């Protein structure tokens, strides 16, 4: 057990170093939503009650979903560089490799969302309703980050190039986030589109984050359960794809 933890720690430390040396994507997905929140907040406030919460959680969902590419790039790079095979022939087991690989990426997602919520509270004025709401927001951020982490790894396990990964992340993130009501509230959707919204993980993430801001436990935990289920399915797929003994990685 101790050996296993030490191996996970070694991998996590190594991956944290790699992540720190390539901060471009993270900074981009941190600064862009802050700018958009500031610009769009007056518009959303005029359009509907709770406009500040909508713009903050909406931008958070859009840009955290786009940050799938940070997770995906980290995992895909291991396949492109063939370092994944190199790691697989060490003593570290598949679960250790994935944990060591994904912990720093998870920390990046948590940091991004915490920073955006803080910015939203301080600059845009979307403040959580009391200390309980802060606790619920922490749970919501942890669940949404875990879901994104699983989805990013699953995606990286199937795409064959950085171009494919970028296209899948950009198109998928915008489509799912928009369908989930992150850009425009679902209440403003045409009637025929509204029933499709729950098909998007963005819908559940947005519901969860907005309920957490209000301090509504029940409406926070139900979407959290939905997202965790989806995350577990994606994780199982990624673990199976990345750890089964099928020879050296080949791409393209």
């Amino acid at each position, binding site marked *: 057990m101790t050996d296993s933890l030490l191996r996970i720690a070694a991998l996590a430390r190594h991956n944290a*170093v790699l992540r720190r040396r390539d901060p471009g994507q993270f900074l981009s997905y941190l600064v862009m939503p802050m700018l958009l929140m500031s610009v769009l907040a007056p518009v959303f406030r005029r359009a509907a009650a709770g406009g500040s919460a909508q713009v903050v959680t909406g931008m958070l969902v859009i840009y955290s979903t786009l940050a799938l590419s940070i997770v995906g790039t980290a995992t895909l790079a291991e396949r492109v560089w063939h370092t994944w095979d190199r790691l697989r022939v060490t*003593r570290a087991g598949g679960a250790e490799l994935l944990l060591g690989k994904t912990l720093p990426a998870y920390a990046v997602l948590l940091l991004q969302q915490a920073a955006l919520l803080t910015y939203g509270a301080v600059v845009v004025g979307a403040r959580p309703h009391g200390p309980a709401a802060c606790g619920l927001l922490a749970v919501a951020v942890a669940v949404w980050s875990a879901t994104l982490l699983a989805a990013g790894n699953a995606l990286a396990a199937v795409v064959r190039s950085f171009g494919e990964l970028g296209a899948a992340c950009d198109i998928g993130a915008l489509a799912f986030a928009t369908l989930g009501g992150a850009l425009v509230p679902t209440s403003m959707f045409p009637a025929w589109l509204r029933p499709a919204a729950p098909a998007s993980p963005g819908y559940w993430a947005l519901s969860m984050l907005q309920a957490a801001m209000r301090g509504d436990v029940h409406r926070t935990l139900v979407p959290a359960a939905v997202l965790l289920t989806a995350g577990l399915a994606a994780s199982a797929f990624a673990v199976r794809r990345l750890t089964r003994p099928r020879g050296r990685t080949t791409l393209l």
Partner: protein
Amino acid sequence: MLHADGVTKRFGTAVALDGLSLDVAAGEIAGLVGHNGAGKSTFVDVVCGLLRPDAGTVRVGGRAPSAARADIGVALYPSATAAEHLALFGRLAGLRRHALAAAVAEVVDALLLTDFLDRRVGLLSGGQQRRVQAATALLHRPALLLLDEPTAGADPQTRESLLAALRRRAADGAAILYATHYLHELADLGATIAVARRGRIIARGTSAQLLVGLPSEVRLRAEGADEVRVRTTDPAGALTALLDRAPGTLREVDIRKPSLDDLYRSLAG
């Protein structure tokens, strides 16, 4: 140390390994040679656990092949330094603090890594990257070391430092399986040889054993005549006969003994 018996691996209808059997003893360097597609890399993947065989058994030191460590081509993190690679793979191998520092110092010295230890490997030359790669495999003294064409594209200095390190590891008791196309390296290493063809080992032994019966080449050039080349298992007799028939003054005589290249050509076909 390595015992492989009847290992079979298919990819769809293609048979990559067709009942391959091979034993490598502790302290032995075994060269695995064969054409591209002969099954060398697939066998290395099976032994290091990247592939599961369809049939047959593989044992390393009597157990499932977790004691094997493989160098399966250059696979490095471009933005990490050579030192960071050594620290990572050392820790993954279970080395800590003083043991890790001592092991790193040993491979840094053996493979001449000192000058670029703190540079990111993406900025290193191909030969330097090769040395870093080999260092990560040699770091913790595995009982069985698998090397798949470790000197492909390497400069002479890299090749020599790696071969010297391998000789030392074998002298210390490690079993080494060395898949390569460079047969002269096997001669330098004093390796035994296994020739693979279509997923099977078709010849196995020391180079001296395998070269028995292969023809030498006798070459003779006399003034005013074309050069004569004869391949024969009796070079002395052939040379005598050629000298008797030589029309003019003798200019050049050469007898080339069979080499591993000849063996490879004759067996791998």
